[in-house]
């Protein structure tokens, strides 16, 4: 009879009825009695061969669980980044161009407030207003309404629902995506707005902008073609870094909206001491973080010729 946190229970269908012989067999097979560093070595060995252990909370091998849940989180994060980037860059540029105007002041204060709002509370408030209050958007039932069925080809429901040809299915998917992605995008948008505003202010004071204006170019062209792309450079760094941070925020957002992604699974795994799950998820997150930093560095070198020669 083993307790709930005991690693042996991950491999037992019925922990109460396990015989001593079975337990000993499992302990031997999975090296559960060896010192920690040896177990860690076996785990690393497994990771390199594609086997990250078995997750008790997912009921699947960890690699399968990740493969199953990754598209959900990725789709959510992608839409959120889209919102954050388009909204953030637009607001930030406008704020810088009309510096110290009423628009600018409001934007600055709002972004300060937006960064101070707890993510999960924002999700709950949105649900209260748009689901319980106005009834415009569906409740926290995950990626689809409970009566809908979708044949998942790619795992990205936006694409899959279009592939199925049923329009109301697509609308349902979109409706379920709106609130979680806005919740997730909120804090990132605020950061991007501040970053974009400050770098845009710097750029607008530069000499080449003054030259462009002196040449007689319309103000819109000056801003869009000359100023903005130079101001984008530090902003790209922020966007890339916040993608890793989105994974952290996704944990809370997915829990609020019952989104069947990596975030919700990691919360459940952490709460239930599902060691294999926790380790698998942590490793995955670290890899994603490092990878997105790499992409940011590459984009940075592409955008800024000065970096390439350095």
């Amino acid at each position, binding site marked *: 009879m083993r307790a709930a946190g005991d690693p042996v229970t991950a491999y037992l269908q019925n922990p109460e009825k396990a015989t001593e012989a079975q337990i000993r067999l499992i302990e031997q097979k999975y090296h559960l009695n060896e010192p920690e560093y040896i177990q860690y070595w076996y785990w690393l060995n497994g990771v390199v061969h594609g086997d990250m252990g078995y997750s008790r909370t997912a009921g699947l091998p960890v690699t399968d669980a990740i493969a199953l849940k990754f598209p959900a989180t990725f789709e959510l994060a992608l839409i959120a980044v889209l919102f954050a980037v388009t909204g953030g860059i637009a607001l930030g540029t406008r704020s810088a161009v009309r510096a110290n105007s009423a628009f600018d002041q409001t934007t600055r204060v709002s972004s300060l407030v937006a960064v101070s709002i707890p993510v999960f509370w924002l999700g709950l408030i949105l649900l209260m207003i748009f689901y*319980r209050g106005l009834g415009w958007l569906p409740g926290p039932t995950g990626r689809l309404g409970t009566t809908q069925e979708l044949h998942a080809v790619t795992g990205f429901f936006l694409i899959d629902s279009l592939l199925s040809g049923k329009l109301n299915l697509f609308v349902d998917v979109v409706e379920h995506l709106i609130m979680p992605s806005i919740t997730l995008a909120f804090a990132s948008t605020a950061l991007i707005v501040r970053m974009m505003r400050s770098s845009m202010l710097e750029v607008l004071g530069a000499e080449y902008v003054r030259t462009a204006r002196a040449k007689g170019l319309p103000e819109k062209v000056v801003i869009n073609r000359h100023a903005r792309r130079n101001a984008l450079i530090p902003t790209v760094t922020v966007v890339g870094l916040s993608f890793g941070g989105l994974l952290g925020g996704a*944990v809370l957002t997915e829990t609020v909206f019952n989104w069947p992604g990596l975030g919700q699974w990691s919360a459940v795994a*952490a*709460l239930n001491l599902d060691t294999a799950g926790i380790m698998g998820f942590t490793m995955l997150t670290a890899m994603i*973080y490092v990878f997105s930093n790499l992409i940011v560095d590459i984009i940075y070198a592409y955008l800024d010729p000065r970096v390439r020669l350095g």
Partner: protein
Amino acid sequence: MTSKQTSGPWEKKATDPAKAVRDKVVKASFMVNLKMALKPRIREWKFDLHLMSKSLTSIVGMVLLVILITLAAVPWLFMPPEGQGNPFEIPIDLNKRDPLPPGSPGYPLGSMVDGRSVLYGIVWGARTSMAFAIQVVLVGAAIGLVLGLISGYKGGIIDEIIMRFTDIFLSIPSLILVMAIAAVLGRNLNATKLALMAVWWSGYTRLIRGQVLSIRENTYIDAARASGSGELKIMFRHVLPNSWAPMVVAATMDMGTVVLVMAGLSYLGLGAPHGYAEWGMMINDGQQRFVYGDWWMIVFPGLAILTFVLAFNLMGDGLRDVLDPKMRR
């Protein structure tokens, strides 16, 4: 029979009249030195306050902060505990099992299940949050300061080792790392606190190291070295005070961030237990009643978190402008 001890080194010194005079002189000159050192500093602090009060956002931040600190320091003046063992456990009233809306008698902000007052939770939650944040940020800042200082000043292999170690902690999103640590240490507030401390120092280390690397090249450091100051003295007397300005700003804003993370963890179930005066846990409890349309258990604690974090963010913003040398003249 006198109680005087037999002669020894202490005995002799106590009755030495020349020593008494020397002590007086030392004490007096110490007071003069202290005054001389404090006067310009006090003048600078007054100037800091003057600069801060110039921007509306800083004033709002300071006012909110004063309110929060008052609530956190003396919560019993506003919501006295009702004889339960631990004042942080919101008192229950089993006659009022179902939550009551705001404005009900005795419950100005409404109640939660079992008659727990939302207002009580908010007031004592301020203390929970403030204490938690102060501890995490202070410990993190202390560790980060020392490590960053050593890493930046010494350079070489020590720098490499410390920075690689720091990078490990920086490369994993903090919420997930804290979740993993807290899962191992247990599902209570202290475990979460330790987990956050274990993660928080890494940001400061990198910040301080960056500052130290640039301060280190200044001429006054060479002058100090030439005049015979030891390495330790240079580090703590010259390099440190000139490099901690960005860290003060970051630490102030981190007070808010720590509370956000703590509330999030409590909401997930990894922090305070049910019924504890902690804003995140109150929202968790409130969510259970979401289907019945009971909104006050979610809205008010959330507003409290928002106010807390906003206050520190505004302060941090104001401090950053104040400490920026370009603005000070």
